[in-house]
C-alpha cells in the first residue's frame, strides 16, 4: 500500500473474559474511505473505537498490540489521549448533539482546545456547517437548542462538530443506520466529498453502502480479520470462502 495512515499490528482486545479482537494486523490507506464490514457482533465497532482509544472507556477492557498513527503508537503510555482523539474524530451510530446551541456544538471542540477569538470561531462554525451540508438550514437559528433539529440534521451537526477540531482521520460507526434514506444519502455524499482531505474509516453492515463508499475493505468475522484489500479486488475476486459467502448474503 502506498501510504498507510494508520497501521495496526497484532491488536488484541479483551472485554472481561471475551477475546473480542484477535490479533489484527492491517493498514488503513490515507485519504481514502476504508469500510469495515462483517456480521453483527464481529467486533467492527470495537475495532473502530480502538483506533481513537474510546474503547478503553468501557470498564474491564484490556488492549495489547500497536496502533500507529503516522508512526506514533497511540497506546504508548506517554501519549496524551485527548490529543489522539483530537486527531481522530468519530461519528457515532446515533446522533448525540451536546446539550447546547447549534453554534456551541460546533464551537465546543475548538473551544476546549484553546480557541477564543469570536471572529475565528464564527468562521470555523460556518465553514464546518457548510462542509457538513447543514449551513443553509440553520444559519438563521444558530442559537437554537440542537435538540430541535431532526435526526438527519443532528447527524450532520455531529459531523460538523467532529470536523471543527480539524482531525486527520474520521471514524464512522454505522453513521447512517439511524437515519431516513434521504438523510443517509446526504451523509454518504458528504463522506465522498471529505475523502479528499481526510482518511475515513466507516463501519457498516449494509453491503450496498460498502460498495458505494469503499476504496478499501476490511472484513471481520468473530473478532478475526478474514480478508482485506482494495474494494474492486475485494468485491470482484474475494479470496476466502467466508468472504464469498458473506458477499452472497449467506450469513
Amino acid at each position, binding site marked *: 500500500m502506498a501510504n498507510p495512515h494508520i497501521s495496526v499490528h497484532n491488536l488484541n482486545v479483551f472485554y472481561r473474559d471475551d477475546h473480542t479482537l484477535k490479533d489484527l494486523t492491517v493498514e488503513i490507506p490515507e485519504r481514502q474511505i476504508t469500510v469495515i464490514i462483517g456480521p453483527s457482533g464481529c467486533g467492527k465497532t470495537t475495532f473502530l473505537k480502538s483506533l*481513537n482509544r*474510546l474503547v478503553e*472507556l468501557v*470498564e474491564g477492557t484490556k488492549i495489547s498490540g500497536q496502533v500507529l498513527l503516522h508512526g506514533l503508537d497511540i497506546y504508548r503510555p506517554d501519549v496524551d489521549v*485527548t*490529543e*489522539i*482523539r*483530537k486527531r481522530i*474524530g*468519530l461519528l*457515532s451510530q*446515533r446522533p*448525540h*448533539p*451536546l*446539550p*447546547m*446551541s447549534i453554534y456551541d456544538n460546533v464551537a*465546543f*471542540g475548538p473551544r*476546549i*482546545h484553546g480557541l477564543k477569538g469570536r471572529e475565528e470561531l464564527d468562521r470555523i462554525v460556518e465553514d464546518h456547517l457548510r462542509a457538513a451540508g447543514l449551513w443553509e438550514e440553520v444559519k438563521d437559528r444558530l442559537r437554537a*437548542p*440542537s*435538540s430541535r433539529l431532526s435526526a438527519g440534521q443532528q447527524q450532520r451537526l*455531529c459531523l460538523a*462538530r*467532529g470536523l471543527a*477540531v480539524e482531525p486527520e482521520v474520521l471514524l464512522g460507526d454505522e453513521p447512517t443506520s439511524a437515519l431516513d434514506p434521504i438523510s443517509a444519502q446526504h451523509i454518504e455524499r458528504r463522506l465522498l466529498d471529505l475523502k479528499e482531505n481526510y482518511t475515513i474509516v466507516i463501519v457498516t453492515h449494509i453491503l450496498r453502502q460498502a460498495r458505494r463508499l469503499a476504496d478499501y475493505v476490511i472484513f471481520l468475522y468473530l473478532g478475526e480479520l478474514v480478508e482485506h484489500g482494495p474494494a474492486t479486488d475485494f468485491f470482484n475476486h474475494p479470496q476466502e470462502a467466508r468472504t464469498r459467502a458473506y458477499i452472497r448474503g449467506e450469513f
Partner: protein
Amino acid sequence: MDKRREELIFQGLMIASALIVIGSLVYVLVVVVLKGLPALNLAMLIQTPKGGYYLGGEGGILNAITGSLCLAGGATVLALLLSLPIALFLQVYSGKSRFSEFTRLSLDVLWGVPSIVYGAFGFTIMVFLGVRASLLGGVMALTLLELPIMTRAMEEVISMVPFELKESAYALGATRLETAISVVVKQSLPGILTAILLAFGRGIGDAASVLFTAGYTDNLPSSLFRPVASLPLAVFFQLATPFPEVQQRAYASALVLTIIVLLISLGCRLVGGRFTAHVIR
C-alpha cells in the same frame, strides 16, 4: 378470579393509596391555613418579638424568618459546594470502584441518621472547641443533614446522562473535567436544581439539628458567631405555651414556613426553564 376483576381491584387499591397520600397533604395544608391564617398579619412578618410576645403580647417572627433563611441558605450553599464535586467524582471519575461504592454506602447511612444526632454531634464538637450556639454552628449541622440528600439525588440524575453523550465529548478530545462541567452538568441541570431544592426544603424545616447548635434569640441574625432563631423552633416554642392566641401564632409561623418553601420551589421552576432549553431528551 377473572382477570378483569383482578385488574379492577388492584387499580382500586392503587388509587386508594394515592388518595391517602394526597389526602394527608391536603389535610396538613388545610389545618395550617385554617388555624394559621387568622393569626397571620403584617406585624408578624416585619417585627421581632417584643417583651411579653410569648404571653400574647406585641411582635412578630421576623427573627425566625431571617434566621431560617440564613441557616438553610448557608447550609444549602455549603452542601452544594461539597456535593456537586462528590457526585461528579462518583459518576464521571470513579465509576464502580470499591471506593465509590463505599462512599455511596456512607452517604446512604448518613441519610438515615436522625437529625437530632447531627445536632448532638455538632454540639459536642462545639463544646470541645469552646464555641457557643451560633449561626455558624447551625449552618454546619444543617450542612451535614443536607449533604447526603443532595449528593445522592444529584448522583441519581447525573447517572442518567447517556454514556454516548459523554463519549461524544471524549471523542472530540475533551478531558474528563471538561466533559463533566460542560456536558454532564449542563445535561442534568434540571435534576441538579431539584436536588438543591429537596435539600433546602429538608434543611429549612428541620428543628432538631438546630436546637443545640444554633440556639434561639429574639434578635435578628447579626453575626456568624451569635445565636439565631429558626422557624421550626419558633413553631415549637409558641405551640408549647398555654395561651391559645400564641398557639395560633405557631400555626401562622408554620404557614409562613410552608409558603417560603413553596415560593422558592416556584421560583426555581421559573428560573429553571431558562437552563433546561438545551437539555437533550
